[in-house]
């Protein structure tokens, strides 16, 4: 099993109101040199969290002690750029289990889903309500119910439904991954190779 089974979560959230957050910001290339999947959370948003000299940038939300929780809330087009799965690993390893935005880049979204990190897409107006709720109370709680596909702002009771592919939902709820599935259907893949004109 590749990751923990996803259950209903109620948590406070960390706001990152920047748009077009690219994977080079999530984890800069110079921290991609490991050959194992370990410790990427330490370098999550490295250049926004720390100066070149290694001092902490106090104004960055992850460094602000008033914010905490398992939910990262970010501006639109989150995860654009490189296909590095290290971005999803870093966010998950840091302690987030879901990222909420009004829009995700394709590859990042796929990578997140393959690693037990739930990308929750909400309407831009609702995203703003989430940012507002955190601004009013940094400890504001939010509930993510994967089974019902519902994201709720606990203080106001307002909620938004979110979309997820039913196959991926099943995988997340059961901690399954695609490789288990693909290995199981190997006979069908071999059959496909025989019956199809495949190059090379």
């Amino acid at each position, binding site marked *: 099993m590749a990751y923990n089974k996803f259950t209903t979560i109620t948590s406070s959230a960390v706001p990152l109101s920047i748009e077009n957050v690219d994977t080079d910001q999530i984890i800069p290339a110079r921290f991609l040199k490991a050959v194992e999947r370990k410790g990427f959370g330490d370098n999550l948003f490295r250049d926004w969290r720390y100066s070149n000299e290694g001092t902490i940038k106090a104004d960055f939300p992850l460094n602000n002690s008033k914010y905490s929780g398992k939910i990262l809330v970010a501006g639109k*087009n989150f995860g654009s750029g490189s296909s*590095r799965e*290290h971005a999803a690993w870093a966010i998950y390893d840091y302690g987030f289990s879901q990222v909420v935005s009004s829009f995700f*880049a394709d590859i990042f979204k796929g990578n997140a889903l393959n690693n037990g990190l739930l990308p929750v897409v909400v309407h831009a107006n609702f995203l703003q309500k989430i940012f507002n709720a955190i601004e009013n109370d940094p400890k504001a709680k939010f509930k993510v119910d994967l089974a019902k596909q519902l994201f709720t702002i606990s203080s106001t009771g307002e909620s938004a439904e979110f979309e997820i592919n039913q196959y991926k939902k099943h995988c997340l709820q059961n901690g399954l991954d*695609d490789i288990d599935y693909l290995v199981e259907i190997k006979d069908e893949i071999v059959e496909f190779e025989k019956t199809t004109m495949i190059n090379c």
Partner: protein
Amino acid sequence: MEAKTLFDKIWDAHIVKQVEDGPNVLYIDRHFIHEVTSPVAFLGLKNRRLKVFRPEKTTGTPDHNVPTINQHLPIVDELSHNQVETLKKNCAEQGITHHDLGTESYGVVHIIGPELGLTQPGMTIVCGDSHTSTHGAFGTIAFGIGTSEVEMVLASQCIMQSKPKKMRITVNGILNKGVTAKDVALYIISKISTSGGTGHFIEYTGTVISNLSMEGRMTLCNLSIESGARGGMIAPDDITFNYLKNREFAPKGKDWDNALKAWKELKSDACAVFDTEYVFDAADIEPMISYGTNPGMCIGINKKIPDSKGLEGNDKATYIKALKYMGYNENEPMIGKIVDYVFVGSCTNGRIEDFRAFAEYVKGKKKAPNVIAWLVPGSQKVENQIREEGLVQILEAAGFELRQPGCSACLAMNDDKIPEGKYCVSTSNRNFEGRQGPGARTLLASPLTAAAAAITGHITDPREIFI
């Protein structure tokens, strides 16, 4: 029969199975791997006690981490060295062909695939690298994947993907002098934004596209991902077939004839419907340059940096943050801005045509003393060709030196880092904060615009020499 796009035809022919309420199981014809995104996939395979299912369909090369000088010496950076060696070891253990540093076939993965003829029309191609979209220039479905998916391909030669929407981008007319494929790509991204292509796969058509060389088409398709699209493709034609003929891994003899017959069928049906369409006119496209921190923040080189009027909330804050990072102000012209570094290379613009354009521009001129220039060929073959064509003498006479192939300053995983606060005109693909080194400021442009900046030491319209 229902009219189909080129994308539909190739995709549908590769569906092994449709998962109920889920993605397609998609068969992959060609898989490229490099040292950064593959080690954890091999480790995963080992933990599951699996072997690589079809090792002959995977090709490896180390490119992201390698130094671009003294490649005959061991890599000094211990972590880089370990990653490069791990790829070599994994390939050897699993029977995967590995194009090692220092060999004739070595180079950046998206440069050598086409060079070796491994990239062929009609294929599905993936790699743990978003610029895999490059290979779409040959009429392939090619896109970047994450490491979990690299492991899937190694384990089963398949990945699980939902079919994206289809977009057609048509560029008609004749390009103005001094305007290259890079400018076309940056122009498109500046118009549709870095998220305009999200959820889509692009097909590029129109007279501008059919007049592009394969090198130009690769540059254009390479940058598809910067609009958020999974990939971009161009229907193959005689330019494609002439490029491929006699390449090492291209079909030969009767196989070639058969392949050619099939490849000529690879085009969208006349009535095929696309989910999204854009049409652009070549006459509107100038040499482009970026001024901000994503590839959508580009303008014609003679234009002024846009102001933030009309932007609100997070949009405005994000825009102001970008300009602050760049050290620029709204309404300033880009022409004349100081340049500290010039980088020519990467999977976007590291091909022979790019170095020819650069050399032609700098011929008989002198590099500005304030500029440090890194010219990095995309592959050993490109480097050899630069030498064989006598370009290296032209470059050296103008005060430039050629480095050795690799990804280099495109993402600064090796020592080729732009220092904090410095400005680099770069032919690469991303101007994100810190992309070329912590605090580095990247100005994306074509090799021609890079040449003009290298000579004058500031942002210069490369068309000035044509006047």
